[in-house]
């Protein structure tokens, strides 16, 4: 067993940390306060090749591993978590193209997404389907020269300005995967949603109304794409967990900084036992979550990842993030709720992760069904 990062992983982590702190901090208010996506950040992310971390270099990626992806998302979430969500979604779309598209399609879309000249979004969730993929209602009907898609997708990140969308739909009763160019006739998005945390990611509904797409936009052949969905969600869970580790580290850093500077009872509150306990709990839980996440990344890199492992990771890490960020708020006392401090944003963002990619309740079900009996 070896718990050390490799030299390239460590170097990459340091670079992303430096980049995030220097380049992403100015965008915090635009995303969190104004609920707007700062498009000027995209070329910066592309210049660091953050859109293509585990993607093959021949498609413009960095050819790195999933551990590097996790480390990068952790560092970015430490500064601005909604941007990490944006990166995660681009990776998930790239990964679908990489695994299921034709060579021409790969060459058309993956480099463009890596260079930030194109943006993708991912459409699975529907108004009546959040947790049970088999109940999706979006349909694809085959005609002589095209497929015709109809349905509504909900909670779609980046949808209002994406160029391409991966869409799960039922074709002859079985789940298939398509990609849809968003300038297609019949493709529309709703007003973006206002929400608790991870603000600025531009979340909306997508309505597909008689959208006609070429036949070669069917990805990986007809039907049987429940596995493709599970694969995408497995990567998603790793990405979310890595971001939660970043949020927790940021919360701990903020809590320590505050406790060292806040004078009460004639000394910094860092000297008070009640504060020791909170900080010690935060640090302990963070370390457990961090290593569970790194293990998940390691399993992914080895091709040993399972639904159970990823569900366990997502369940534990996202719940722990909510607790750790809440403790960080508690250390700040009343100042915790003030916009003057970072901690309230971390607290709001943390809760979001429990609700995305399957709630904790769903993760428990996934785990229990796979326990030995």
């Amino acid at each position: 067993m070896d718990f050390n990062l490799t030299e390239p992983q460590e170097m990459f982590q340091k670079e992303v940390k430096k980049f995030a702190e220097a380049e992403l901090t100015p965008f915090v208010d635009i995303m969190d306060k104004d609920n707007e996506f700062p498009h000027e950040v995209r070329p910066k992310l592309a210049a660091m090749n953050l859109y293509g971390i585990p993607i093959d270099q021949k498609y413009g990626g960095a050819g790195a591993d999933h551990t590097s992806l996790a480390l990068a998302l952790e560092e970015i979430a430490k500064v601005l978590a909604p941007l990490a969500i944006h990166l995660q979604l681009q990776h998930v779309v790239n990964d679908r193209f990489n695994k299921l598209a034709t060579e021409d399609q790969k060459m058309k879309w993956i480099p463009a997404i890596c260079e930030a000249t194109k943006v993708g979004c991912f459409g699975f969730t529907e108004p009546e389907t959040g947790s049970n993929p088999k109940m999706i209602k979006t349909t694809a009907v085959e005609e002589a020269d095209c497929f015709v898609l109809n349905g509504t997708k909900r909670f779609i990140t980046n949808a209002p300005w994406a160029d391409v969308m991966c869409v799960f739909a039922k074709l002859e009763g079985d789940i298939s995967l398509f990609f849809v160019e968003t300038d297609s006739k019949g493709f529309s998005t709703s007003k973006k949603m206002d929400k608790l945390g991870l603000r600025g990611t531009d979340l909306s509904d997508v309505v597909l109304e008689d959208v006609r797409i070429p036949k070669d936009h069917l990805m990986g052949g007809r039907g049987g794409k429940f596995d493709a969905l599970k694969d995408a969600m497995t990567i998603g869970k790793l990405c979310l967990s890595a971001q939660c580790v970043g949020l927790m580290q940021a919360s701990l850093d903020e809590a320590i900084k505050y406790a060292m500077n806040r004078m009460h009872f004639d000394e910094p509150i860092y000297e008070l036992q009640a504060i020791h306990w909170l900080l010690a709990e935060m640090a302990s839980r963070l370390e457990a979550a961090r290593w569970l996440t790194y293990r998940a990344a390691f399993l992914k890199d080895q091709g040993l990842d399972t639904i159970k492992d990823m569900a366990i990771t997502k369940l534990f890490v996202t719940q722990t993030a909510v607790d750790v960020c809440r403790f960080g708020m508690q250390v700040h006392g009343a100042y915790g709720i003030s916009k003057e401090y970072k901690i309230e944003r971390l607290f709001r963002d943390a809760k979001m992760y429990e609700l995305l990619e399957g709630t904790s309740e769903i993760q428990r079900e996934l785990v229990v069904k796979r326990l030995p009996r």
Partner: protein
Amino acid sequence: MDFKLTDEQTKLRKEFFDVCEGLEKKKPKGFAGLEGIYDTDEGWEYHLDCAREFGKRGWLSLGWPEEYGGQGTIMDKVFLSEATGYHDVPGVDIFGVNMLAPTLLAAGTDEMRKEYLPSIASGERMWCELWSEPNAGSDLAALTTSAVRKGDEYVINGQKIWSTGAHRGDWAFALVRTDPHADRKQKGITFLLMDMKIPGVTVKPLLYMDRCHLYNEVFLDDVRVPVRNVVGEENQGWGVTQTLANFERSSLGAIMAMHRQIEEVVEYCNETKVNGVPLAKNPLIRNRLAQMASELWASHALAYKIADAQSKNEMAAFDASAVKVFSGELQARMAQFGCDLLGPYGQVKHSKWAQFDGFFEKWYQQSFILNVAMGTNEIQRNIIAWYGLGLPRMK
């Protein structure tokens, strides 16, 4: 021991609930909790209307001596708090009715009571609190706002923070330092009353994390307050605050608000099907709801016990701390549960997709403050350990 209400109490409690149910129907859209009262002009007007209605009925002076216009008992006040909490109806000024009036009755002069109590009882004058400072929160006695006596006035300079509703309140009760050389920091503090509209008072908003305007910073620059506005004696204000701190923490209103939420969540779970099955049949949801209902009834019983003790002047200092910790943390867990129950919809606000009008998204943010306001829960646990369990006093 008898947990049963008398027939008279049952009748009066029902009257409180009936009136509050009527007032609830006039509630502005989106109104909720303290935020609803102080954030918008519409909410504030609704608060004043409700206050005047309660004032007309004599319900803002429950438990006061008759000579000051009082009627009923402290327990009656508890029942009213249940009704307002359940229907989320404002009108009872937490500062004037719940905090200042009992303080004036305990520590004010007869002249002060006659001057200030009538407008509290009628709901005509609203109050706020000027206590916390940037460097004096849980360690409140570290406050530094100075009041220097000049003739029959004090000249006050300093900064207050976290002053709930100071942008709405007509008058404030403040803590100021009148003797900076006292041998203990608790000595040398004076409790006084001041008009918020006098020269030198500047109120600036301190937005909550959900950007609502509930809290304020208040700057006091050469503010002149008459010496006769002191409650108790000069330099003895800390003793006055110790009486007052126990008046605001029986938490019955918040507990009844949670009962209402449980009822609404149960209704939602009965009506909402996921994958063709009502949420009410989901074992995970049933388990969490049952757990919360159990804890809610435990905190309800504790709050009744405290109200009963208070009505008999037998309340221990740590009783209020216990119910504050228990019910405040329960409320935070309940808000979390609400978001979890709604899944991705639990994050949405201001939208047709926001279930319960976005209540749980809002409550998730609002409930945090319960565990840091009025002495953080760490401080409350210290009080319980020290006063309640007899453990050595520690910081």
